């Protein structure tokens, strides 16, 4: 019974990953991160992704703050934040988030406030979706590890 659970969890994880790839939410760089995870660094992916979440939320707050100023929007500063966001998104394989940032950057370079507002909304939406899905993925993995530990208990 436990063995079945393990198989199903693995299938769930693969299915979710396949979906995210199919949707273009993740790209092969995410798989690169997985390759870097092993017994010596068993939580590598979630550690990096959690840092990414923290940094991204700071960047999103900054971007929203910069755009809320109706008098003068510091497009140059927006560009700096966006460059950081593009870089970190690319490093973890967050393809769709990265692409929206690129479009956002174009709007900021054109001093297009409306375009920037739209891009920000889309960016927040994409980021939320990514975060939820990655959390789901990590949850399944946690369950899988627990199930594996029960199935293959360490002999002392």
């Amino acid at each position, binding site marked *: 019974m436990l063995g079945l659970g393990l198989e199903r969890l693995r299938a769930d994880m693969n299915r979710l990953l396949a979906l995210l790839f199919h949707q273009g939410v993740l790209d092969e760089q995410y798989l690169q991160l997985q*390759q870097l995870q092993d017994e010596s660094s068993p939580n590598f992916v979630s550690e990096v992704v959690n840092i990414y979440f923290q940094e991204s939320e700071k960047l999103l707050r900054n971007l929203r703050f910069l755009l809320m100023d109706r008098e003068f929007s510091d497009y140059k500063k927006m560009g700096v934040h966006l460059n950081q966001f593009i870089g970190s998104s690319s*490093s973890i394989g967050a393809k769709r988030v990265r692409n929206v940032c690129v479009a956002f950057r174009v709007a900021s370079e054109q001093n297009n406030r409306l375009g920037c507002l739209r891009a920000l909304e889309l960016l927040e939406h994409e980021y939320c979706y990514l975060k939820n899905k990655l959390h789901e993925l990590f949850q399944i993995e946690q369950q899988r590890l627990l199930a594996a530990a029960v199935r293959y208990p360490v002999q002392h």
Partner: protein
Amino acid sequence: MARNGVFSRRWRAEEFDYLCPSLDSDEVHVLAVDDSLVDRKVIERLLKITSCKVTTVDSGRRALQFLGLDEQESFVRFDGLKVDMVITDYCMPGMTGYELLKKIKGSSFREIPVVIMSSENVLARIDSCLEEGAENFLLKPVKLSDVKRLKDYMFSEDRSRTESKVMNKRKLPETSSDDPSKPTLSPSPSIDMSSTPSSEPSSSPGTFSSLLYTDSSSNSNVSSMPSSPDSLTRRLKMRSQDL
């Protein structure tokens, strides 16, 4: 100033992400410079997996401090922290990777190879870096195969050989034909870093399914593909086709 490594100012350990007081002289020590914490974490892991010792810093200024090259010339470099390679991001606030490269190449540490990383595939940028003496140019996001290739290319001696303990002898790249007087070590096969040899999974977008999770422990130590020294230009050309 005494040569026993006494600093004129105390280093604070928290200034650097990782401080290694004692180094096995066999191990390659890389100084990684990037303002992005995400990227620092990734490059650190990439280097550690390829058996390098890593120190990460978040700016060019800190990198120069670590090397002992900043304004206060009275610094004495701690021999235990000998740096074998610097790998730096190009786009950084304050001092760019390019500026850091120039500072290193214009100093007493000009022998240290410097590798530039950049997310932008701009030929002019690559050219100017190589002209300033950069050893190599990696496109971000950096992959495990990039780092393995880099390490094999630059430090391909078999580290289990005990005679290499004396000095950190580096195999000179086979393409450096400009200085024929430099001695070259006899070529050694590229080192297989994995304990269980496994083929490197295909990285083309269409075959991600082959990399999906299996219950066996993930193959993190993949052997590098045999590569020729001019693979950098080929990779860059391939990259620009992908975009």
